[in-house]
């Protein structure tokens, strides 16, 4: 996905409500994707994303345009997810992602469904810091320096987290493929 037109961000920063709505439209799905994968629960993810955009609106005047808007946005989103993880830690993790055709489907569809579920289960089993690093790097396509600004971790630590996450996912999903 390409980055948002900075003139929209600048207009939103000046208080243009339409521009802010456009900004929300542009990034909502991506933020929701990250939050769903981080929190493993569609409802919590929705709440985290809604909170994020409310905070973005409240703090836009402080956004420094030398920072990439996307990094700034994901920093707030990642914070919200972390906060919610602390609150929801005692709850069981329920993976709700997309509509899975439980009652029908051909064999390939069922295989795809099992594959999706296994990915979610494996992702949920990752330590939160590794899951976050993996998603930011491979799914959101961010550079390590940007990830450092988002997570507060050093580049080498982030590389290690991504590496460990990949190793874990490879082993878990390779087992599924062999089964």
């Amino acid at each position, binding site marked *: 996905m390409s980055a948002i037109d900075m003139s929209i961000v600048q207009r939103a920063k000046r208080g243009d*409500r339409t521009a*802010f*709505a456009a900004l*929300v439209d542009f990034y*909502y*799905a991506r933020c*929701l*994707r990250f939050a*769903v994968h981080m929190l493993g629960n*569609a409802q919590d993810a*929705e*709440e985290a*994303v*809604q*909170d994020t*955009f*409310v*905070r973005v*609106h*409240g*703090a836009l005047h*402080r956004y420094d345009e030398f920072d990439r808007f996307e990094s*700034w946005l994901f*920093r*707030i989103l*990642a*914070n919200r997810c*972390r*906060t919610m*993880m*602390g*609150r929801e*830690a*005692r*709850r069981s*993790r329920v993976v709700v*992602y*997309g509509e899975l055709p439980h009652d029908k489907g051909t064999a390939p569809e069922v295989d795809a469904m099992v*594959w999706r579920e296994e*990915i979610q289960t494996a992702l*949920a089993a990752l*330590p*939160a*810091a*590794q*899951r976050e690093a993996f*998603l930011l790097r*491979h*799914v959101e396509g961010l550079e390590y320096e940007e990830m450092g600004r*988002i*997570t*507060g971790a050093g580049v080498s630590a982030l590389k*290690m*987290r991504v590496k*460990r996450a990949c190793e874990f*996912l*490879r082993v878990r*999903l*390779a087992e599924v*493929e062999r089964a």
Partner: protein
Amino acid sequence: MRENQDDVINRIVDELKTLPAVPADATARVLARVDAARRAGASPDVDHDDVIYFPTATDEMPAATAEPARPGFASALDERSRRAGGLRRRFMVSLPAAIGYALAATLVGFLIRGALPDGRRSTNAAPTQVAQTAQPTEVAASRLGVTPVASVASREAEEVPIQVQFVLDAPRAKRVAVVGDFNAWDGTSNPLVRDSASGVWSAIVPVTPGRHVYAFLVDDTAWTLDPRAPKTKDADYGTEQSVVIVGMK
């Protein structure tokens, strides 16, 4: 082998990159919440984009333990104890001296209790922090603030919500709601009901155990802190909020 492994990761990433469906009213809800926050006077200010760190520096921390550490007396004590080589070593005393200290402490305790006014002799603190603050006038203090309705001690599973009563003395208000992190700061989720005789508003809200921040929203606009509760600043906006600890001793 290596290529096969990378292929697995690529397939995982392809699957994870699928964008979820966005609710049709998502943007409208964001805008409505922005308007509500503005009406409530929440002033965006400090620290909104400071990184909230995971509570451990290790990468092996399981997600289920991701709760921010709370610095407090216990941690300060731990640190001091560590520096002093441990509490046991630091405070090791002989038996006669210990008896002497105990007697002296008992005597001092009696003297202090005798010196306090009647109203302060009882130290039956509520299980929440809010009971420690000054009490408002007019209405019996026990009816204000936050009170766990259900027995905390009987709760075994920490994730089970505890019924918490939120109370505010606001006789001239037309509407009062409690908003907090437990209801996504939604002013419509938990309206308080007014007792016509006393003008005291109250509501019982199920809240999961843990530390929560909240405030009262009076007449849909006035952000009102609980006069009996400790206060803290919101990490994002710097707005003051009340704090309640539910189900934790």
